[in-house]
C-alpha cells in the first residue's frame, strides 16, 4: 500500500464513523449482515440511553426496540453467515463455521434476552441505576454461600451467557429491563470476542 493511500485511509478513518469505513466496499450477504448488525447497534444505543438515564424512559419505545433486536437474532442472523462467506471487508472469522453449535446458541440467546427485555419494559424499577451484576449482591449486603459460588465462577447464568449449554439454560432471571439489557449486551460481546476480528 502506498503512503498516499495509507494517509488517505487514515484521514478517512478519522473523519468518517468507524462503521462507514468498515462497511465500505461490502457486497452481497456480507453487506446485508453488516447492515443488520449496524441496525442492532443503533437500537442498542437508543436502549442504553433510556436505561441509563440519558434519555427519558419510555416503556413502549423500549419494547419496540427490543422486539426489533429479537427479530434480528436466531435464524435471521444465521442466514447472514452462509459457509465460506469471508469476502472482504468482512470481520467475520473462519472459526464461526468450525463452531456452528455455539454460534447458533449465541444467535438464539440474542433473541431470548431481547424478548426478556421487551417483557420487562414495564417493570416498576425500570430506568433506575443497577446496583451491580444481577448475580453480585451489593458488597455491603450480607449474603450466604450461593453468592460465593456465583462470585467464584459458578453462576449458571455465566454458563448460559456463553452459550455453553443453551438448550438446558434456564430462562433469564433478570427482573428489571436493565438486567435483561446487560445479559443481552454480554451475549453480543460473547460472539464478538470469538467470532469477529478486531482489526481497528
Amino acid at each position, binding site marked *: 500500500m502506498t503512503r498516499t493511500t495509507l494517509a488517505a485511509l487514515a484521514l478517512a478513518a478519522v473523519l468518517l464513523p468507524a462503521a462507514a469505513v468498515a462497511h465500505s466496499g461490502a457486497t452481497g450477504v456480507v453487506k446485508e449482515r453488516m447492515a443488520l448488525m449496524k441496525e442492532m447497534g443503533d437500537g442498542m444505543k437508543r436502549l442504553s440511553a433510556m436505561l441509563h438515564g440519558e434519555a427519558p424512559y419510555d416503556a413502549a419505545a423500549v419494547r419496540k426496540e427490543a422486539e426489533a433486536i429479537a427479530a434480528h437474532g436466531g435464524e435471521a442472523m444465521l442466514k447472514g453467515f452462509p459457509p465460506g462467506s469471508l469476502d472482504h471487508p468482512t470481520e467475520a472469522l473462519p472459526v464461526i463455521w468450525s463452531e456452528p453449535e455455539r454460534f447458533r446458541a449465541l444467535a438464539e440467546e440474542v433473541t431470548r434476552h431481547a424478548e426478556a427485555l421487551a417483557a420487562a419494559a414495564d417493570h416498576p424499577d425500570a430506568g433506575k441505576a443497577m446496583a451491580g451484576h444481577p448475580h453480585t449482591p451489593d458488597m455491603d449486603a450480607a449474603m450466604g454461600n450461593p453468592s460465593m459460588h456465583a462470585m467464584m465462577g459458578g453462576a449458571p447464568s455465566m454458563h448460559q451467557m456463553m452459550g455453553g449449554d443453551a438448550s438446558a439454560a434456564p430462562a433469564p432471571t433478570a427482573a428489571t429491563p436493565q438486567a435483561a439489557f446487560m445479559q443481552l*449486551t454480554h451475549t453480543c460481546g460473547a460472539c464478538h470476542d470469538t467470532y469477529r476480528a478486531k482489526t481497528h
Partner: protein
Amino acid sequence: MRRSAFAVVALAALAAGAASAAAAEFPDGDARRGAYLARLAGCIGCHTDAAAGGAPLAGGAAIETRFGTFRPPNITQHAEDGIGGWSIADFAQAVRQGLAPDGSPYYPAFPYPSYAAFSDQDIADLYAAFRTVPAAAGGRQGNDLSFPWSVRQGLHLWRALHLDAAPPPQDPARSEAWNRGAWIVEGPGHCGACHTPRGLLGGQDAEDALTGSSDGPGGGPGGGKVPAITAAALAEKGWTADSLATALQTGLGRSGDAFGGGMGEVVRHSTAWLTPADRAAVAAYLLEP
C-alpha cells in the same frame, strides 16, 4: 518410640510449625471480599473455559500469542490438578511474585507483576475465596510455546530485564475515586497487560502505558488490535466518565457496538461484577492524565 520414627515426627512438627508460622504472617481472610478481588483481578475469566462449559477455575481456554499457546491452568482445590495442596505462603508467592511453590517462574502471560499490588489482607481474602472453589480435575495440558520461549529457565533473564512491579500511583492530592481507579487499573485490573504494547521479548515500557497494542486476542492468527485507552485517546473518541463506566458494565461502546476482541470477556467476567463506584473510579483514573 524408635529413633527414626521420632525423627520423622520431630521433622513433621518443625514443618508444621514453619507452615503455621508462615500462615501466622497473614491476617484472617474474608472469602467474600476475596471473591470480589478475584473478579476484579480477572481470575475467573482466564482460568475458566466458559465457552466449552468448563468447571469454574478448572483451566481456561487456550490463548494464542506470538510466543505460542498459553493454557491457564486449573486453580481449583483439586489436590493434584489444582492448588488444593497450597499454603497461603505458596499462594502469595505465586500471585505476587510469579513463582511456583518449587520456585520456578511463571510466564508473565499470568499478570503477576500487576498482582504485586495486593496487600497481605488482599492475599488472605483471595486465599479464603479460592478455598471455596470446588475441586475439579483437568486443566493441566500446559503451554505449547515456540523456541526459545519454551525454555522456562529463560524467564529468570526476562525477569531481570523486564520485571517491573512498581506499585500503582497513589496521590493524596487527587480524589479517592482517582486513587482507587489508579490501584485497579495499574494493579489487579492489569489493563496494561493487553492495552500496553510489548516489545520483542514481551516486555513493556512505562512510557507506552495504555497506548494500545497489536498483540490482542481478538484477531485470529494475526493478533488483534487493542485500542489505546490513554486520557487523550479516550477524549478523542468522545468518551465521558459516565459512558466509560457504563461501558464497563454492559460492554457496549458509544456507537451501540458491543466490545469484542477479548474485551467482551473482560466485561462479562470481571468489570460487570464490580460496584458502580469501582467502575466510576476506573473511568476517573483513565480520563484524568
